[in-house]
């Protein structure tokens, strides 16, 4: 098989096993006619490995850049941009489009001739080339641990620049908003800026049972002040309601028991 759903298939060897890379010309709005879109790249692929690979199969095809999916080394399968969800200050930038699916990547060549060379050579291969992957192991893991510790100087710089950018964005936005709230539209309405809605209960179910109970107590207290047993019909009504309540509860219980019975819940064990 050479193709699947418009993707070409490139078998490569990883330690004598065959791994399949699926690729096609990168198209879409950012297309520059010199990039290849790939799916199912082997793990830990980076620019260096890509370059090595093309040196092997298409000498002269110079790789300019490699964009890996952020998700390839992430435990989740799709990406959420929390910044965008929490603030409208962050504009739709290209950053989001670069979140391509897991294990995908975009390889860009220096020019279209490099691209053509590489693309054609990939198709013409008649035996599976070795994928230039290295062995990782303990030193790699240790490095990962060490990388968790952040360099303080870098961090300070990063924090200060980013906060500055944010502050500026915020100032702009506030000024803009201020303008809007002062505008009275044709119908005489002004824009009201409200808090964002919260949905905690939606996720965690009901939470505040304590308040609820207290509220109920309050309501009950209030009710006590009114005379609800002045007229005979009130008494009758009350009794009837009580009885009905009792009855519904009883019916509910009966149903519950029926359910438990079906599950054979009454066998001593």
């Amino acid at each position, binding site marked *: 098989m050479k193709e699947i759903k418009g993707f070409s298939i490139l078998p490569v060897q990883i330690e004598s096993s*065959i791994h399949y890379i699926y690729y096609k010309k990168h198209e879409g709005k950012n297309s520059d006619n010199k990039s290849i879109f790939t799916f199912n790249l082997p793990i830990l692929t980076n620019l260096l490995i890509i370059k090595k690979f093309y040196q092997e199969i298409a000498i002269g095809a110079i790789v300019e850049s490699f964009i890996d999916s952020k998700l390839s080394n992430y*435990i989740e399968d799709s990406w959420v941009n929390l910044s965008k*969800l929490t*603030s409208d200050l962050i504009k739709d930038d290209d950053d989001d489009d670069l979140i391509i699916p897991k294990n995908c990547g975009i390889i860009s060549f220096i020019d279209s001739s490099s691209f053509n060379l590489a693309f054609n050579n990939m198709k013409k291969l008649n035996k599976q080339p070795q994928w230039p992957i290295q062995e990782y192991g303990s030193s790699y*893991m240790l490095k990962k641990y060490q990388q968790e510790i952040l360099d303080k100087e870098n*961090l*300070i710089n990063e924090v*200060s620049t980013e906060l500055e950018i944010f502050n500026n964005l915020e100032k702009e936005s506030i000024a803009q908003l201020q303008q809007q709230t002062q505008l009275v539209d044709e119908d005489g309405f002004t824009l009201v800026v409200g808090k964002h809605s919260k949905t905690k209960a939606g*996720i965690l179910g009901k939470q505040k049972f304590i308040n609820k109970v207290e509220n109920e107590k309050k309501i009950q207290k209030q009710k006590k002040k009114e005379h609800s047993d002045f007229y005979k019909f009130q008494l009758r009504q009350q009794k009837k309601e009580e009885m009905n309540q009792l009855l519904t509860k009883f019916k509910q219980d009966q149903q519950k028991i029926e359910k438990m019975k079906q599950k054979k819940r*009454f066998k001593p064990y």
Partner: protein
Amino acid sequence: MVKRDKAIDEEDDYSIPIINNGTEQEDQEVDEPPVKKQKKQNKQQLTAQDIQIARETADLFKSNIFKLQIDELMRELKIKKSHEDKMEKVLRRLHDLIKQVPSIENLSLQQAEQHFKKLVIPFPDPKPSKLNYRFSYIPSEDISLVGSYGLKTGCNQKSSIEIALTMPKELFQAKDYLNYRAFYKKAFYLAYLAEHLITLSKKNNLPLKISYHYLNGDVLNPVLRLESIQTENPDDLIFNKTKFNINLIVAFPFGIFDAKKLLPDKNCIRVQTETETESLPPTPLYNSSLITQSTYDYYLKYLYTMKRSTEGFKDACVLGRLWLQQRGFDSSVNNGGFGHFEFAILMSALLNGGGLQGNKILLHGFSSYQLFKGVIKYLAEIDLSKGYLSFSSLIGENITSKYKSDGFNVPTIFDKNAKLNILWKMTSFSYLKLKQLAIQNLDLLNDVVKDRFDAILLQKSDYDAMKYDIVLNFSAPDELYDLFGPLEKISYITFDNYLKNKLFKILTTALGDRATSIDIRKEKISKTFALNKRKASNYNNFIIGLQLNSEECDKLVTKGPNSEDKEAGLKFRSFWGSKVSLRRFKDGSVQHCVVWNLKDEPVVLTIIKSALDIHLQDVSQHVATDVGLFERLPTPLLPTAANQVITSLVSFTALRNSFENLSKTITNLKLPLNVKSLLPASSSLRYTSLLQPVPFAASNPDFWNDCILQFETSTRWPDEISALEKTKTAFLIKASDLLNDLGFTTFLTKDDSIPFNEHITLLNILTPDGYGFRIRVLTERDEILYLRAVANSEKQKSLVQEIYLKFNQKTQGVIKHTRTITQLAQHFHFYSPTVRFFKQWLDSQLLLSHFNDELIELIALKPFVDPAPYSVPHSIENGFLQILNFLSNWNWKEDPLILDLVKSNVDEFNDKLTIQAYRVIETNFETLRKSDPSGIKTQLFIGSKDDPSGILWSHDLTLPISSRLTALSRAAITLLKQNISEHNLDLIFTPALKDYDFTINVKSTDLTTTSGILPPNTYKNLIQPLTSFPDDITTRYDLIQEFIKQLNTKFGNTIIFSSKKFGANVIGGIFVPSNLTKKKFRVNLGYNVKPDTKDEVVINKDVIFKQIHLLGGNLIEKFNV
């Protein structure tokens, strides 16, 4: 039909309905009409009948639901009609056979013995040698059905049917109550009857296996046990499918002996001693057995009258029987001596009074539930040992029962008419145990929040290892029989009774406050024996079950009386002998005391062994226990480890002190915003980390202790998430600089515990005293932003909700959890070691890393806050087994686990869950299950006041992992219930690797000492404690954990990886089944695929393995597919 009782027959048309009579059959028809008919009826009758029932049950029963549950239970327990019919036939035929047994008269002892060829007369000890009276068999005039089957309070749970043959009066002389004479006569009567029944039953197509049987374990009361034999002959009457067997009792006529002479304080066995007859000890067991054997019929009539006058009596009897049975109690000597009969008599007595002034405790109009609860309440609240209940079984006189507060210090319910102590088969310890159970169950019955039906009646709770904290097995050596002299023999009748009593006395004195309950019984007892044996064979193994007082049990000093109290001092010395020393205590008092050396066993065990050695001739070598098998937690690499008891929290306290210091330091730091609080949020800070915190032990996976830092309120936090995190980071950098100046080592790390929030940083602090803390900042803005993200999330809603839950876990959730667990761990002394042991087990099965620590801790809390029907565990063994037992029975698809996280269920605590709160949690569960009925998304639901949602800690679990937890718990408890042994424990701690699709053996570096663990087989006193951190702390980390993390980021969506969190040496992998099938080709499949056919692809396992191999590199030892 077996003869009905004449007296009752004549009274009116009610007879003892041995067999279902007409009315009950009608009942049944009403019960089970054709389905269609019933539906119609229901609609029409709704208002009249149902209102009546609804109103009644609300009044008479705790709640409707309880009443309905009882009804269902009764139906479940009801003896099958077909079985009743079958037994009716059997009993009729048997009755005819008995009538055919011919008389024989006036045999001498020798003749009597020679009369039998194969049979042996079941004479009690001592076997008669020379007698001046004769043995006879004259057919009985009086054969009646007695016991619960006769009363129709029997149930289908391992029942026997009792038939009493009363020996004719003329066989006895007035003095026969003395020196076993009546018993000898009865023994002959019984053997003769057996001999004839063997042949008669064969002839008359009623194939029976007949053996002797000690009724209720009373060696003075052998009866014939008749069991059905399966044959091929269609004419034979076979009843083994009914599960019934028949006890044929030979009884004495009622009132034939002078009852006054058989009072419990009288002597009826005259042995020759140098002293006078008057000074012979009383023979209460002998006397009571004699009376009991003359009152079967008599008490049946009494109970029957009660049953007729009280509608709920019958059902209450069945409830009582089931309740006792589930707890291992019945009428027999070895099982507490309190069963259905005793329960029914007590209930009858209470219907006639029972209060101090003879006021009625129970009323005839009570429902079965009220009667049952009333009896439990009476048992729980009234002391029948210090005082006693006096009643009369005389029918028709309505003599008031009275409680008298001055008793005999033996459990007593005294029948004035028959002169019998109904509780004669009870011991002081079985009574205490019963009282304890009653107290516990009264609480359950009073619980209005949770439905306790299951714990009270349905669950069997007689498994020793969960009933007791420590179970000892004592095999009494033969030498001990020397202690059992003639006087002991007449008081106690059997060596077993004597020794149990003796052991109880020794242990009670020795343990004092350390034990709350001591229970002693024979491990195995043979009540049934062949007709060619005179008595049943004897086993010498005793089970001693202890429930401990965790406040006291581990104390190293047993304090005795003050040195000035000469008399008490002498007593104390005479008990402990040379072990006693005088000590001056901090308060200046000088006291006698015994100091115990800590060995590799609980202190109570050391004490028990010493006491037994002193008082029972060096028998401690015969005491075996499996409590030591559960001491598997790693020993900390600390100088104090040598004299640390298992419940010690010293190492945790040291860490908490360090935290307190840090907290003070940080609060005082000069930061742009004032610090409001630094709150603990790690397992070590709440006493639950598997390894004890040891200074400088950086390899411990729980080395870093999470803490939550909160500043004073500010409105200036940025309103966007990454800017907010950056601002927090700025604060942490500042704090880090300030802390460095104060002698702490600090650095910042990137945190990935909340997915998609990539800008979180944590401040890591190494304190000079060797602990690690990791600080996370929480602001009041965070939650607003996460919730806003959820609100704005649209298509990604469920994913963003997960993020919010993670955030909640890592901040508010863990703060609350840590606070609650800390309090409870300080209160329940065995919680900490138990939960740590449970974690160790999970880790050994490669499961621990799949769970949040918090989730495990909540599960482990179950037996401590809600142990019913067992009680709060005070040993690792008990706690661990109760956890397993719960997990193996927890049907999480249908039931939530709702925990009331309070120290005690007694009402004084205000923060108990209210009914409303409980309902809220239940409703949350119901809502959850509506959208996910079979638990594919969320399995375990654990709600509490800290987390009414019930899913905070379990939402990220997966179905295979939850199912595996249940399956492994089941396997483990099944194995341990068979036998708790070193071998079986090793087995449950061995991971089941064959269940994985592939396993990887990895090269692990030895991190034992750097994790703060004393390497096995080293001496505790040669400990070289750790004293410093290395320059690069990451060199102490476990590389395998990073490997697994990398595997999860690369292959986590296709393979579930499992490995140990502590000292991983193997990684197991299971392919996610849904990814094994062929898929249409898509670029967002996310895992490694090879082309299959046309548009389809399939997982490329081979190359995945190769890549894992390359990733692991030198860490991989062996790859097993």
